[in-house]
């Protein structure tokens, strides 16, 4: 037994496909994708109950693959239009790796490769928060993120030994700063996490 269906990730278009999916009337595309996976799991049970011998994982993989193949077209083309802030920041960090001494024509030292590595990892944790990180370089060659967000701005500087400094001007008028925070590549330093969490709460309150 194989269920063939397609779905797309357009947030306004309901699911279409080769099976009557009228019952899936949610307007949330994620429910379709989630439902597709869940359907596959149910199908596995149904197949087993019928005494058939399809591989459960094959059904699951097929279900997901059919979802993805149709979705890929939209998502790939949509991605073509504008990279996310974090993708653009990662691209800048990658670019900085090739820069040498005097990259600014004013005698700045070459970017610190260890710090760039740390900054790239740190970037992966910033996406939990409503900030747009812009990757830049400090005159000392250390990577910096300028954080753009509604009602404020901030900076995070990373040093090669994994230490992080930040200064954030919050929308409520308060400025928070900390220096030499340890970043272990597993989670943001607590102080930075706390202030960004506060920023997210402010942003959600104002929405």
């Amino acid at each position: 037994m194989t269920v063939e269906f397609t779905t797309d990730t357009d947030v306004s278009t309901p699911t279409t496909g080769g099976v009557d999916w009228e019952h899936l009337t949610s307007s949330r595309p994620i429910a379709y994708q989630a439902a597709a996976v869940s359907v596959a799991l149910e199908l596995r049970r149904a197949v087993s109950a019928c005494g058939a011998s399809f591989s459960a994982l094959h059904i699951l993989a097929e279900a997901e693959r059919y979802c993805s193949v149709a979705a890929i077209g939209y998502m790939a083309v949509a991605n073509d239009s504008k990279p996310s802030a974090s993708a653009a920041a990662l691209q800048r960090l990658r670019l900085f790796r090739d820069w040498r001494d005097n990259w600014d024509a004013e005698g700045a030292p070459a970017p610190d490769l260890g710090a760039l590595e740390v900054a790239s990892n740190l970037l992966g944790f910033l996406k939990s928060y409503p900030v747009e990180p812009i990757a830049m370089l400090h005159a000392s060659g250390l990577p910096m993120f300028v954080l753009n967000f509604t009602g404020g701005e901030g900076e995070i500087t990373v040093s090669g030994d994994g230490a992080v400094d930040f200064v954030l001007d919050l929308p409520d008028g308060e400025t928070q700063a900390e220096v030499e925070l340890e970043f272990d590549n597993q989670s943001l330093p607590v102080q930075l996490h706390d202030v960004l969490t506060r920023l997210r709460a402010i942003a959600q309150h104002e929405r």
Partner: protein
Amino acid sequence: MPQFGSWKPIHDTHAIQLAAITVTLNEPVGDLTFRKALNNVNPIAVELGLTEHAPINPQLPPQIQQFLNVSSPMQGMSYVRQSDGRIGERAFINRESLRFEDFEYIRWSPFKARAQKLLGDAVSEFTGGSSVNNISSEYTDVFIGLVGDQSDVSEVVNANSPLIAAGAFHSKASWHCHMGWFEPIDEHCRRLVNVNIDVADNLLEEKINRQVRIKTQTFDQFGQDGYAEYSNNVSWERLSYHLDSSHDRLKSLLRDILSPEAALAISLP
């Protein structure tokens, strides 16, 4: 932009459209365990920015529903972080699987750390009531042709790669290739490796957008087909070992598929 020939990866620094980790159990967990896990995951998801929560309660078409338990309880929960109107990250907690997806992959280290933060405790909770069937890691890499239907696929993939069926490959037409095989890992575990390559021509605004999609996936399967049973309560540390090992394997698979120019464009060593 790291264009190479008549192609580019979907991002400037890599081609990863989706990275995902899935932990699948042998049996669905009971209600109590399931709800305990959700109570644990819900606030963590919010903390990570996955603030859109939706229950998974599919209603199935009648021709399928007849085989199934009609009054199934809530099957799972989905969690989404939106980013500029697109899905940034997504997670599913179902009664017999847990899955974390990242559509804005940056680096392995933060991706794995976020997956661990979100799923780690739930995995421990689930494996108290069931056992792990497999842990899966997957990447979907996408390359976009820049000259429509003249985009030559041989610029992206190595036509002579052992991971591409020679009879399927075509440089300027759609095709699909699926491969799978098993690799032993240890006395408890074997690894199912899947490689799916899709070359599709999507029509958008009357223009052909040729895309190459490469999905590489591993399933580290425990206690099956002669492999020794693994104890219950598999810790995240144990699974973490498999994730790191799979990560390296998936990179080597992609390296074996791509052309040198494509690999260079995405800084794949």
